[in-house]
């Protein structure tokens, strides 16, 4: 239980936590941008925002994950290729190959192993942020529309500009409407983390498969049979505990945010207090 490879398994738990920690705010930022774009008064911008929100509904998210990891990689390499090798004559896409000039490669073929791993992780985070950004854009867009009209009209009556109304009235009030959706999203995000495995990051799923399995049925470096079932049972329990703790925490947060709000939750608190 304390061999080097087991240590990698325990470390990969932190990889998952790091992914969650980085992706959640990034996705929220993407979502905020998407929601603002969808609300925009300029038609093309609003179409763009709405398309960003809508397209994720019709297509399985795992397809997006597989798509973006390659697409983003090629996109970055293509840009670097344009910048670093302007004199390059040959086509980049040759038959079934995608070849950029050597200095444009990402990461450089001379760079050490950890750079490759970090780059892979970075691509995974970006992919998660794009996909979950669309989800949270939808939630925030709904929340912005849920803020009572009267609040905005009052702001206008006080002579606030559109920008002031947005930042001082709309944004502070929308969170309580967004929280149920966002907490749901957090749960979905937790449950999507094992998909890191598909993006080529050596996460918990990878190590559970490695360590539980017998490399060769007759001769194996691990002195046990096929334990993968038990490793995955452990993962199952880990995720169950994780989602349960999040649920309890989010309920507490909801109680706190409802305080003093013009919602039924806030009203119930006021009555209970009075």
């Amino acid at each position, binding site marked *: 239980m304390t061999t080097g490879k087991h240590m990698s398994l325990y470390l990969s738990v932190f990889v998952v936590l790091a992914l969650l920690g980085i992706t959640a705010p990034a996705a929220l930022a993407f979502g905020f941008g998407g929601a603002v774009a969808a609300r925009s008064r300029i038609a093309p911008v609003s179409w763009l925002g709405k398309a960003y*929100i*809508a*397209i*994720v*509904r*019709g*297509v*399985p*998210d*795992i*397809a997006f994950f*597989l*798509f973006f990891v*390659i*697409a983003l990689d*090629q996109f970055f390499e293509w840009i670097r290729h344009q910048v670093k090798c302007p004199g390059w004559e040959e086509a980049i*896409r040759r038959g*079934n*190959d*995608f070849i950029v000039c050597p200095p444009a490669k990402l990461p450089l073929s001379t760079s050490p192993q950890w750079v490759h791993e970090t780059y892979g992780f970075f691509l995974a985070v970006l992919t998660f942020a794009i996909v979950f950004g*669309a*989800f949270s854009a*939808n*939630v925030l867009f709904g929340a912005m529309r849920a803020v009572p009209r009267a609040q905005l009209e009052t702001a206008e009556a006080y002579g606030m500009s559109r920008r002031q109304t947005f930042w001082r009235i709309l944004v502070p009030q929308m969170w309580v409407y967004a929280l149920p*959706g966002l907490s*749901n*999203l957090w749960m*979905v995000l*937790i*449950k*999507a*983390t*094992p*998909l890191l*495995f*598909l993006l080529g990051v050596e996460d918990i*799923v990878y190590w*559970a*498969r490695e360590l*539980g399995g017998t490399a060769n049925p007759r001769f194996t470096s691990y002195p046990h049979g*096929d334990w*993968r*079932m038990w490793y*995955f*049972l452990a*993962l*199952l329990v880990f*995720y*169950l505990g994780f*989602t*349960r703790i999040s649920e309890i925490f989010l309920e507490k947060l909801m109680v706190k945010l409802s305080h003093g709000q013009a919602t039924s939750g806030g009203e119930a608190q006021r009555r209970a207090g009075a």
Partner: protein
Amino acid sequence: MSCWQTIQDYALRSVGIGERLLPREGYTLCEHFTLIGSGLIWNVYFGTLALLAGFFLATAVAVGKSSRNRLIRKSSEWFIFIFRGSPLFIQFFFAYFLFLSLKGVHPWFDPFTSAWLGALIVLFLNTAAYSGEIFYGALRAIPKGDIEAADAYGFTGLARFRRIVWPTMLRLAWPAYTNEAIFLFHATTLVFFSAFPAWGQRGDALYYAKFFADKTFNPFVPYPILAGYFILLTLVIIGLFGLVNRRLNRHLPQEARRGLKLRVNLIR
């Protein structure tokens, strides 16, 4: 090779009928469309069967969760909690290795290790848990007056449930249930990316899309095709569920009869 020939060779490739070897070079658009469409057969198979079977278990679980019997209530709650609280991806892995261990005990478990049965069972239980929670919420939202009216008419037990409670529950749950159905079909793409092996390269739509993306190293063709197929599939589901929704609400006055409002609710 003409496109018609390709369709003849590969349209049923995912179920093992037609050309044995997958295309090796060239990879025309026609091959992309045919093979990915062929894989869609599996997505529809998994989605439809799991949804149909899951519907009945979901009703049972929802009724169980609102039961007054402690044992039944607790077991339903745990069932929902376990399947909703853990990732489907891990459930697939766990189920596969569980069946693999059981296979060593008795050869009767052989078919469970292949995707068509093993993955179907996981999807069935998973969707039953999610829809069970939806139905449970709807059960609690049934207007008190409906139940009182049923009592006043002398309905009891099963008759009351079948004639009054169940239809109202479905009516209230239907928009959320439509959403769940869409997500279930999306979840079917996970099957061949978890532990379940695709024997003889017979996979689902995403499996073939990834096959093309890996071979041509060009994600910009196969994935948009896959996306197109899935958007069509989603529209079909919304259409079918809309028909059921109309039938469920047929007794309501015309104005009150809202169409299945396409709330872009992205979350399961």
